[in-house]
């Protein structure tokens, strides 16, 4: 099952979706068992921004029909904190490290890429142009022209493989993938969460006066992940894989090897597991094992 990806050799084709597995927290919770069969063939960090971010106010989660709506808001220590505190620890993981970054301007992204480029612990960089929870990044990812332009600017800043994580909230995702390719991306990954909204439930008690309905999530809208988006993900991954020359990382609602198989069969080189890891932290390993068997 070993697979080549942007010059990296991975032991199997299953990795994690950014922001859905905190290897350092998992090591605290599960101890050394984590490293015995690390569930992913490469580890993708959560999104790192230039400045530290606290993330969004709670509540941040909602259980939807066959899925999860989240609005986490990219909490992270900022580039400096990540490089100084987390990177040395992440380097001890038994798999290659992919650092996911996001910036709202080409200048910001350049700075992020340069900093990553300087660090040997990082095997590849994933650029998040797709997070629906944060204003920045969204526009770049949804507009092919802008995406290509930004990439042309930032691409020279790192010699490491550059993966562009596309936004699914676009009219034509494969056009965005081609723009990423033209801009110098070595791979694309998709899909990120679908823009979604849930409201606070109506009070059961109380008088009949119409209550003012507010969003449930602290930040207003969120992103839908999990089984509910699986068929949408498969369509987008297939459309991108058909047109793009560069390898594709497919994700969205994968919870079994059969779902992973579908993504690989429409042309994905790697598959990422996100929400399913919340239900079972070893889901990635199980899926990889079943794919191989």
């Amino acid at each position: 099952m070993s697979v080549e990806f942007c010059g990296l050799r991975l032991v199997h084709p299953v990795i994690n979706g950014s922001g859905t597995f905190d290897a350092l927290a998992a090591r605290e919770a599960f101890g050394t068992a984590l490293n015995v069969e690390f569930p992913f063939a490469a580890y993708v960090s959560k999104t790192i921004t230039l400045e530290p971010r606290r993330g969004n106010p709670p509540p941040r989660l909602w259980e939807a029909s066959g899925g999860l709506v989240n609005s986490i808001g990219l909490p992270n220590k900022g580039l400096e904190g990540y490089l100084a505190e987390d990177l040395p620890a992440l380097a001890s993981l038994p798999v290659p490290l992919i650092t996911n970054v996001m910036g709202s301007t080409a200048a910001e992204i350049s700075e992020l890429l340069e900093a990553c480029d300087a660090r040997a612990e990082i095997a590849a960089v994933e650029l998040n142009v797709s997070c629906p929870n944060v204003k920045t990044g969204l526009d770049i990812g949804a507009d092919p022209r802008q995406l290509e332009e930004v990439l042309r600017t930032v691409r020279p800043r790192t010699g490491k493989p550059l993966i562009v994580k596309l936004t699914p909230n676009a009219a034509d995702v494969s056009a965005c993938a081609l723009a990423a390719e033209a801009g110098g991306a070595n791979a694309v990954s998709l899909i990120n969460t679908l823009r979604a909204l849930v409201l606070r439930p109506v009070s059961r008690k109380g008088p009949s006066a119409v209550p003012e309905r507010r969003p449930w999530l602290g930040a207003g809208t969120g992103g839908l992940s999990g089984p509910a988006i699986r068929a949408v993900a498969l369509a987008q991954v297939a459309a991108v894989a058909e047109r793009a020359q560069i390898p594709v990382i497919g994700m969205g609602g994968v919870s079994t090897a059969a779902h992973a198989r579908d993504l690989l069969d429409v042309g994905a080189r790697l598959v990422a597991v996100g929400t399913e890891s919340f239900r079972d932290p070893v889901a990635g390993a199980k899926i990889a094992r079943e794919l191989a068997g």
Partner: protein
Amino acid sequence: MSKAPFGRRLLRVTGMDELGAYRVLRVADPDGPEPEPGQFAMLTTAERWGAGENERPYLARAFSFARWRDGQAHYLLEDVGPGTKRLCELSAGEEVWTLGPLGQGFTAPGRVGPHPRRAILVGGGVGIAPLAILQDALECEVTVLLGFRDGARAVGAALLDGAQVATDDGSAGYHGLVTDLLAAELQRDPAAVVYSCGPAGMLEGVRAMCAQSGTPAQLALEAGMACGFGACFGCVVPRHGGGYLRVCVDGPVIDAAELDVVEEHNGAPA
């Protein structure tokens, strides 16, 4: 902190008992690590998880260990939604996926306060669960104060020894809030460590009271959780001094000094 085996485990239900308005679920876990008081597990039933109204439950649900005895985990359950409803329907012989023990448990009195003469356990509703396993472990003098909405729930007080009970409707014990009982206890002798778990409003009362009397307090919080092991960053509460704590890995037991205020963050309509 007891570390959890990596990956969820399929365990067998050994019993399900009524306890007033609650249920006590027992699950055999002969090989599992013994949880520390205050730790929790993420549970889903092996069958029919994903069913029901509104197509939920889908994610696992968090439950405090209420007791650990003879290689069995005891959980105290209150049916408040699709996940707890499904779990409450279990009976002996069925199976439960279990991930845990997870999170930071209570800190022993000797390591909290300087001269802890006694521990005061303040519980509200189903939040009494982690105080039971804590009482099992405590060796100092213990005062137990438990508040419930009504008499059917107050039956749950049997889970702990020697509890003073308060009910909102006066149907059992003191007619009023459990924090009234705490106020009296702190007045009598503030040199104690308070351990508390319950609804946010109660915890905030406890926090504020203890802050005023200078009594150290350990609060077991709740938050909506998707994973329970720090992966999703979904279960946060604001931390004193800025930023957020993840309840699942920084808690669920959090030193009251780490919090400015305990608020309901599940957005439940008032």
